[in-house]
């Protein structure tokens, strides 16, 4: 029933909804189906996601002409212009939307299965394992991400968790490959490198030589994936040029991170400074995020008991990902998918985290229903492209109110920011408490 309902909801929503990112994905797929290269259409994602988009475009082109994979009726152009360039000017046709979101759905299923396996192992309780499966697969925020937004953050997050899972099941080559895939789909897993380092060191149950060999196999697995992804001549340079050029295609600040504070009235000068200094700001925030993750990693490496990885790793991961979200220069709503699986794992065994998981679900969903994603970033409303309804117009009316619009946006983003701070502190408290065995008793 969970499978049926979760899949059915996603498949119902997928073909007829769109948003800024699905428009970009559709345009990238279409460009490659029309003979373009992987970065002929400017897109800021690493190569493996672009390769997936190529598959989607080429699959769709088996059924439709390549020049019909995206649609851009005059009404869409007019809406885009009316909202000051804050709306996409095309949308993927239903088949393309279904294929892209269908691919993401597969990883929603894989993630649900992985969480099931981990909880089963962690608690020995099949009911809890089923609960976490349902909690993920029927999570409204996850359904919105997969079925409407088509955000693919579940894919790198699956590979991150899979990497840890395989590492602790003595499959270092697969674990390294999973980590490599996570990075080559979306770069954020690189920020978790200290945590991976701690996990590698925490295997005190392995003899030193065997541990060293395992680390080597992990490295080979990662290197193999990176080589597979970057072998075409010039591809890495193209990618670097797109993401590294000043206030570039992927520039943004805000969302619900600390930079959301720049949404306060009267701080226009600061917002301008942030934009003009995108590159150094991103670099500094990356260093801060990396440093904070390293702190969690050190805690984890020093305190994780041998052979019982579930609880300490989960809390260290929660703290680490929150640290990234709270320090990074941009924190879009779909980034909450980086933390939600870990939160659900913790919530199954600890009541304290159930509130946080619920709040992240509600807060993330609210971003989409009322289209608030931070002061400098693009408005990302839920949009249904039929001739008789569009939430975009509702969002435009809400946000267009000169009195309330800016405050609604600010309150939402700052609220989620504060919530994440609370959750990160909870994770830190959990991490400092010594753990025993494989089960953590709910406080």
């Amino acid at each position: 029933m969970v499978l049926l309902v979760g899949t059915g909801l996603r498949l119902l929503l997928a073909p007829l909804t769109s948003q800024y990112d699905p428009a970009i994905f559709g345009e990238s797929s279409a460009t490659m189906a029309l003979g373009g290269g992987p970065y002929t259409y400017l897109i800021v994602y690493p190569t493996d996601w672009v390769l997936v988009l190529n598959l989607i475009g080429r699959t769709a082109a088996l059924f439709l002409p390549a020049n019909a994979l995206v649609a851009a009726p005059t009404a869409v152009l007019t809406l885009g212009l009316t909202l000051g360039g804050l709306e996409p000017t095309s949308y993927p046709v239903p088949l393309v939307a279904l294929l892209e979101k269908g691919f993401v759905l597969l990883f929603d299923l894989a993630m649900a299965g992985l969480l099931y396996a981990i909880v089963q192992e962690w608690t020995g309780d099949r009911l809890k394992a089923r609960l976490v499966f349902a909690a993920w697969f029927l999570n409204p925020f996850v359904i919105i991400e997969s079925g409407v937004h088509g955000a693919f953050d579940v894919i790198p997050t699956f590979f991150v968790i899979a990497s840890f899972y395989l590492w602790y099941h003595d499959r270092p080559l697969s674990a390294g490959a999973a980590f490599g895939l996570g990075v080559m789909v979306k770069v954020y897993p690189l920020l978790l490198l200290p945590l991976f380092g701690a996990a590698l060191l925490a295997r005190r149950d392995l003899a030193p030589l065997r541990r060293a060999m395992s680390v080597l196999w992990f490295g080979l697995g990662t290197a193999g994936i990176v080589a597979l992804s970057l072998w075409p001549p010039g591809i890495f340079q193209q990618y670097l040029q797109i993401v590294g050029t000043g206030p570039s295609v992927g520039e943004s600040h805000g969302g619900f991170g600390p930079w959301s504070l720049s949404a306060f009235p009267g701080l226009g000068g600061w917002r301008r400074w942030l934009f003009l200094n995108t590159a150094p700001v991103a670099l500094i925030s990356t260093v801060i995020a990396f440093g904070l993750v390293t702190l969690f990693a050190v805690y984890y490496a020093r305190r994780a008991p041998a052979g019982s990885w579930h609880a300490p790793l989960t809390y260290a991961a929660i703290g680490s990902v929150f640290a990234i979200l709270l320090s990074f220069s941009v924190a879009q709503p779909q980034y909450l998918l980086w933390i939600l699986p870990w939160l659900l794992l913790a919530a199954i065994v600890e009541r304290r985290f159930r509130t946080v998981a619920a709040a992240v679900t509600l807060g993330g969903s609210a971003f989409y229903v009322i289209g608030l994603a931070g002061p400098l970033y693009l408005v990302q409303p839920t949009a249904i492209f039929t001739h008789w309804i569009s939430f975009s117009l509702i969002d435009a009316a809400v946000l267009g109110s000169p009195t309330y619009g800016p405050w609604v946006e600010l309150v939402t983003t700052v609220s989620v920011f504060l919530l994440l701070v609370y959750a990160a502190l909870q994770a830190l408290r959990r991490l400092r408490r010594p753990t025993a065995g494989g089960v953590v008793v709910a406080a």
Partner: protein
Amino acid sequence: MRLDPVRLVQAVIVLFVVALLLSEGLLYAPGARPRLTVDQSFRALGGGQLALYTNASGSFAANLAQSVFALTQPSPPTEVYYYYDSNYPVSYSSIADWYGLTQHLSVVASARGLPFNLTIVDAAGLAGLLRQPPRANTVLMGPWIRLGGTLVWAGDTLGRYEGTPIAPGASFGKLIPVPNGSARFLPGIQVGGTGIVYSNRSAFSDAVYLAYPYAIAGGAFRTSEVQAANGRVLGYLDGSWTNWAAFPIGGGTIVDLAAPTYDVVRLSFSLVNLLESGAWTPSSTLVGISAFSVTANAPYSSVALLAAPGAGMHVCAFSVEVDYLAPFASRSCD
């Protein structure tokens, strides 16, 4: 049978890697990537006539437009200067789009294999550029155009510019245009129109695929005035108004796109098509337009008879795929 979750996770990894390999094969294996080829060549037939031979084939269904121009300069421009200065406010655009357009232009030009050198200049750099050859007067743009330069203006109405930089620490701010800015560029030309998205394409827009339908209400040109000024209607039409026009100014040209620049994807393709066709100058003559299609099983061939160009003129054929996001175009001259 109990499923081993470790093996299942490994299976997901393997399947994903297989998908990546398949995708790479579709992109990089010889003959696997969708391709489109158009060969265009001219042959003199004598008696003041030329023949244009066109052969097109492809692995997917594509719609193309072919335009033939007689023009003095057969090569598209290779040096393009792009004004961007974050110290000044933005109008009918955003700071991100203002900068981002440069990246899109470079990528589209690169995909076409065009020898296209895009140089970003700020306000000081622009002044330095316009002072070539060196002159003492403070009015820079008009003399530079008259000496043969081409100004392409997009965003707010032609001539609405801000002369005062944003104060340090201030927000992006709203543009406060200098008085009578428009009159400095095209005195006597009236602008108007009410639409913001036009639906009908002009002949030139069809020929060269300038697919940018947006407009600034009150900033468009009346087609009759464009023609009266010996200019050329380039863009979309809304009744008697057009959003894009070129005007001869002495030895040079003003090309004005009276439209917001939010849609950088469409704008980049349109601008590159305009530059690659080399035919934005009103002195060029549109000799002919045709539209054709190819599919995987149906290539295209044609021979067109043309009058040979006059002395000092060349004739060039420009074929472009008229589908949104299609990267293909080809240009050949006699």
